[in-house]
């Protein structure tokens, strides 16, 4: 590389950086307070846009100068909508569960007045003497944010914020390095693909770099299809430039000219944010011809998926980009050698690419210092289901499941008992309490029968039926199977039918053997990951929760009282507070009435649709509504 070129890159980037830093400082040092509202999809679902509107209106009404910035998701999704207020002289305070009324109060009492409204506070960002900060939370000792660092702290629609926080400096550095050096650095770091399978990223890059071919492609796989996982969505919505920067560096390292970001159509906000980010990057010549004055040219196109789970598989994704059916192809040849249009194609997951800039910036050694022997760095998990602190968390590899669920996630709500954690989506499995002390990494999870997958964790408690969750996943994989391999297409259907019978109480004892046999056949007879891993949810639940299957089959009983065909709702007359009408009013099908003389409530089992509304409505001090299984347990029923 020529010295002149290096100097151009440095000076071009320095100029951009100086300007963005100036904007950033102007925002924070203007002497005015700054309000930040998390408006990623999770925030919006909880009403964040209404909060933004209320804040702006109130600020205008009070004639204050105070910008309201929309930021991404900071991972504390349980407390959405989240508002952060930074007032000069105070540490930044974060408020949870904000609604428009609270928003107006915050403006009047904290921004205009001086009362930080402690009753709505979630925590402070910096440590101080008054308000507990996030660093004091028990989860702080486990959380090590690398790729989530910017999420919820910067405006994802403003490239200046990203650059002012160190963004694109790794690109400027990488463009002055030899591509081989970058590849060897990534290889040395031990980074493994975060899409699920955990293939060493550096080796993939090396294969693609050495593959013959003048035209190469770089694809970012944002087809996060696993139900229960949303890390890729959150990153694309909250920090899209980190992924774009990773893509440009990867493309430079392997010599790719064309880039594609494949985002699910179910993520409209992510699509919108990525599109905007690409436009901004192009404007600053971070994309396009002769990036930052170097000899390297590269551009990225956005491609929206169209709702097919199987397209998360790389060969299917490529077929879909080519306008064909998303049907996986036999590998080898691997896409790194023969991919899009038969040309060498590097394809990496969103999170994998988000790590790239940090590895370039801090070096392989820094990355290697975290994590376990064979899985380096951090892991990002999405916590959902029956857990107090739902949201996103980034912890070093090797943290145990127990630490993630009980210390970071604060355990199970409503004093219920933990039953299992479903990890890895439809390809993963359900791990019981006994597996909780397992340090999480790619290999340990696989040994336990689950899979890292993309990192979705759904926590299940005593009210969740393990047969039902196995049936749910089979229903999903059966529907999403592309139909190419017979065992996947028909085998999953057979398994689904058997499981459906069991959840209806029509199962036979032989069915359990049939399930095990079919699971083996599907694993052996399928080409891609979808089929090969589809039986995992069934196999792990059979391995760890066989007694539940047996209860369904032998006694027609659902121990968790979840399978609708095997339960009935019942109001205990002795517990019913006769003058209360809570359940009667809420019943959506008018199935509850008062017993004419004694006034306790009765459920008409014929009319009841088992939606559970009455159980939620019954005041906790009475607790008169219960679920019974099998339904014949209801007194007076035959």
């Amino acid at each position, binding site marked *: 590389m020529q010295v002149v070129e290096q100097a151009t890159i440095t000076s071009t980037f320095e100029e951009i950086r100086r300007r963005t830093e100036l904007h950033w400082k102007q925002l924070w040092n203007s002497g005015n307070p700054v309000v930040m509202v998390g408006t990623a999809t*999770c925030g919006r679902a909880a009403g964040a846009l209404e909060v933004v509107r209320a804040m702006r209106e109130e600020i205008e009404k009070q004639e204050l100068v105070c910008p309201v910035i929309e930021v991404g998701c900071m991972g504390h999704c349980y407390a959405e909508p989240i508002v952060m207020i930074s007032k000069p002289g105070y540490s930044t305070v974060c408020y949870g569960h904000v609604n428009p009324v609270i928003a107006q109060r915050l403006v009047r009492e904290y921004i205009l007045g001086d009362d930080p409204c402690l009753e709505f506070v979630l925590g402070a960002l910096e440590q101080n003497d008054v308000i507990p900060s996030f660093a004091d939370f028990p989860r702080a000792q486990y959380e090590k944010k690398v790729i989530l660092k910017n999420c919820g702290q910067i405006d994802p629609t403003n490239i200046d914020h990203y650059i002012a926080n160190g963004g694109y400096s790794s690109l400027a550095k990488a463009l002055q390095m030899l591509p081989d050096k970058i590849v060897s650095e990534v290889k040395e770091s031990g980074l493994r693909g975060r899409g699920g399978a955990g293939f060493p990223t550096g080796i993939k890059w090396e294969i693609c770099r050495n593959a013959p071919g003048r035209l190469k492609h770089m694809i970012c796989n944002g087809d996060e299809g696993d139900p229960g996982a949303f890390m890729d969505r959150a990153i694309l919505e909250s920090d899209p430039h980190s992924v774009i920067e990773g893509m440009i560096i990867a493309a430079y390292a392997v010599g790719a000219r064309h880039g594609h970001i494949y985002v699910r159509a*179910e993520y409209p906000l992510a699509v919108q944010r990525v599109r905007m980010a690409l436009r901004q990057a192009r404007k600053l010549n971070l994309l396009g011809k002769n990036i930052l004055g170097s000899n390297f040219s590269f551009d990225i196109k956005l491609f929206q998926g*169209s*709702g097919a789970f199987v397209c998360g598989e790389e060969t299917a994704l490529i077929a879909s980009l080519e306008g064909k059916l*998303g049907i996986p192809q036999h590998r080898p040849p691997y896409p790194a050698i023969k991919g899009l249009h038969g040309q060498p194609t590097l394809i990496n997951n969103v999170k994998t690419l988000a790590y790239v800039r940090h590895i370039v910036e801090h070096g392989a050694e820094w990355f290697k210092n975290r994590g376990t022997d064979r899985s380096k760095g951090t892991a990002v998990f*999405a916590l959902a289901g029956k857990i107090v602190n739902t949201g996103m968390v980034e912890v070093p590899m090797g943290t145990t499941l127990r630490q993630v669920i009980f210390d970071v996630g604060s355990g199970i709500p409503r004093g219920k008992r933990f039953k299992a954690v479903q990890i890895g989506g439809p390809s993963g499995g359900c791990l019981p309490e006994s597996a909780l002390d397992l340090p999480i990494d790619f290999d340990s999870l696989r040994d336990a029968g689950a899979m890292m997958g993309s990192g979705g964790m759904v926590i299940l408690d005593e009210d969740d039926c393990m047969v039902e969750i196995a049936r749910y996943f089979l229903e999903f994989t059966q529907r999403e199977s592309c139909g190419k391999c017979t065992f996947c297409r028909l085998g999953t259907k057979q398994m689904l039918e058997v499981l459906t019978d069991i959840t209806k109480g029509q199962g036979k004892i032989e069915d359990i053997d049939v399930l095990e046999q079919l699971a083996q056949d599907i694993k052996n007879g399928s080409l891609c990951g979808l089929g090969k891993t589809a039986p995992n949810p069934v196999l792990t639940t059979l391995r760890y929760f066989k007694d539940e299957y047996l209860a369904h089959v032998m006694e027609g009983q659902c121990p968790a009282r979840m399978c609708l065909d095997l339960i009935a709702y019942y109001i205990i007359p002795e517990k019913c507070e006769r003058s209360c009408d809570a359940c009667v009013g809420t019943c959506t099908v008018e199935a509850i009435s008062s017993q004419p003389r004694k006034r306790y409530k009765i459920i008409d089992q014929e009319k009841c649709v088992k939606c559970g509304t009455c159980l939620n409505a019954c005041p906790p001090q009475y607790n008169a509504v219960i679920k019974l299984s099998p339904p014949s347990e209801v007194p007076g029923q035959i």
Partner: protein
Amino acid sequence: MAVILEEDTQVKQETSRILRRFSRKRDSLIPILQEVQGKLGYLPREAMLEIAEFLGIPEMDVYSVVTFYNQFRLNPPGKHSIRVCLGTACHMKGGYIALDAWKRRLGIGPGETTEDREFDLDTVACVGCCTMAPVTVVDGKPEAKVEPTRVDGLLLSFGHESQKELKESHASS
């Protein structure tokens, strides 16, 4: 008959207007279909024929792509779209119960449109709002914690029930 013909020509016009912006490469097929559906709400036969001709590929290929991917629909949508999320977290927190409630209230199943073309109901694999489960996406906006009572609340906010009652009272009087 005349009405149908008129509709067909309109579909053709809209489709060819969109096609002008694309290259005649097979790669454009899915983006074209997405654009056309975005404009028309669904993919009528006429539009698919037009696209096949434009790209110079068999009509069968267009149809197979349309039916392979979940996003594409062959029948017109309702005025309001109801998408019940059936991701893992939503399912475990009662997404299937919410779906039942929608089915009961609208009187249609997933993939169908109400007779008055007010609502269409469908399921979606996961919208990534797992922390707000169970989620229903109503007209593109994810609604958090949609339980059967909330289903009624949302419907009420559309004034659907009241309109229906109004119609019924008109009919009876």
